[in-house]
């Protein structure tokens, strides 16, 4: 029951979904869409496990004052601010006491975290109670903004989009841009022309990089552009095609192993 039933489910649903792809009938199409919806729903519930894990790891770091524990507050505040902003929206022309509400919510969260880890729990629970009363009071009496769980007004909340555009996007874009510098130092080590293979890598990479350089001397741009285009569309295409076919066959083989119960690592221990 504990281990056999899950394997049976994997086999039945795996075999069924593989076969249904080759049945050109509307009922097969319906079952496919229907079960695809199921996986999406189950997947989102599984996401809650990940979020809980993030919360727990952060609180544990604060509790045991591990290295960089102060920044765990930043992670938790960022998480909860985004969730709150994503479920609220502006009704009138101004936000009213919305900013006070967000601050009260953060205070509530801070007190609650401390209540779960501090020795003097009573004080922190009392403070979190005060913060809760304030934020519930604002939520009840302030009509300038509303809460929406079932409609997507929260996604259009300007505070939510500003957090996404001016906090999340710049950091993520800069982190990827940082890789330009680290990749350059990695390239120095990788590109030393020690043998034929390293030389091939070096030459093709330099040609493709020169292609995007606007300061090339006269005459070179056309030749480099043509050479780079050929490299990208002929040898690179052959290499990528071989890799993609390899990946596809690998996924099929692994999926078969999972369906047939040969690969069981995803079930965990116990």
């Amino acid at each position, binding site marked *: 029951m*504990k281990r056999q*039933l*899950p394997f049976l*489910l*994997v086999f039945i*649903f*795996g075999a069924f*979904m*593989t076969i249904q792809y080759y049945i050109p009938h509307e009922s097969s199409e319906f079952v496919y869409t229907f079960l695809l*919806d*199921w996986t999406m729903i*189950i997947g*989102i519930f599984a996401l*809650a*496990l*990940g*979020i809980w894990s*993030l919360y727990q790891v952060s609180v544990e770091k604060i509790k045991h004052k591990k290295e960089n524990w102060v*920044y*765990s507050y*930043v992670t938790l505040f*960022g998480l*909860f601010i*985004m969730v709150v902003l994503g479920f609220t929206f502006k009704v009138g022309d101004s936000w009213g006491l919305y900013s006070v509400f967000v601050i009260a919510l953060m205070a509530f969260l801070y007190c609650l975290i401390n209540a779960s880890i501090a020795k003097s729990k009573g004080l922190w629970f009392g403070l979190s109670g005060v913060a809760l009363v304030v934020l519930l009071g604002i939520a009840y009496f302030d009509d300038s903004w509303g809460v929406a769980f079932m409609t997507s007004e929260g*996604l259009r909340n300007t505070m939510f989009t500003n957090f*996404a*555009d*001016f*906090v999340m996007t*710049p*950091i993520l874009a*800069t982190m990827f*841009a*940082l890789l330009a510098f680290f*990749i350059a130092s990695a390239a120095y080590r990788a590109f030393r022309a020690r043998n034929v*293979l390293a030389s091939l*890598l*070096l*030459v*093709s990479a330099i040609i*493709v*990089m020169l292609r995007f350089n606007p300061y090339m001397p006269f005459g070179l741009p056309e030749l480099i552009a043509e050479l780079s*285009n*050929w*490299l990208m569309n002929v*040898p*690179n295409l052959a*290499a990528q*095609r*071989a890799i*993609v*076919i390899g990946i*596809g066959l690998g*996924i*099929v083989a692994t*999926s078969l192993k*999972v*369906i047939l119960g040969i690969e069981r690592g*995803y*079930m965990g221990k116990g």
Partner: protein
Amino acid sequence: MEFSDFLWMTCGIFLTLATFSFLYKDNPFYKFAEHLVVGVSAGFTIIVLWHGTLVPNLFQKLEDGNWFMLWLNSSEWWYVVPAVLGLLMWTRFSKKYSWVSRWPMGLYIGISTGIAIPLEMSNRVNKQLYAMMVEIDWANFFGGNILSTTSGFAQLLIFLGTIAGLVYFFFSKEHKGVFGGVATFGIWILMIGFGASFGYTVMARVSLFINRMQDTKAWGVEAFNASDVANPHYSSMYPIVFYLLVAFVVGYIIKEIMDHLKRKNA
């Protein structure tokens, strides 16, 4: 630009500089930005999945039912099943009942792998093989230009390169003799491909870096444009915010230099 928008932009520039500061060394500003993006991205994902997937695929399907009937009286009551299975995933929190979470996990893995087999065969393997096996244009073998990407030579090279690349990844037979020669040709093609992909990736990162610098420049320009009396959003606050951030960055750099000198002299 409204002052509130300028403040948001300033926040973005501060976080950009904080992230770039990692190039010097790991420091509190980088750690702040790093931890902030983890929380904000997780919150963003929750909201997008909630509004984009959970509401249309679950809540709206069950909206004509009643909660006290556990939505079993809704027209699409069978959507209660994945919700229950999803809730069963949360038994992972319990040591005693965590084994129950294997049921939805089994269903999820079964459906996902079952969908993956025909889709992967069709979309990755078959389509790539079809595209590879085109008729070689022998009459136009070099196409008047050795670097033509549509000539017979290019088609032949793509075909042979793909086969050789696959041969290189086949480890059930020792790479010796003719087979070894084909595998060697395969690794040459793969290395050229890796080099081209590497160069392309580097340039993509560089373009992201240029974009961040352009944003920083646009922020500075905006700060001084708004201090122009002719500007409809005229305010002296814009350059003040600009100088505050610049002073902050310069102050941090001076502090680091002083610390460095102190350590050197100690």
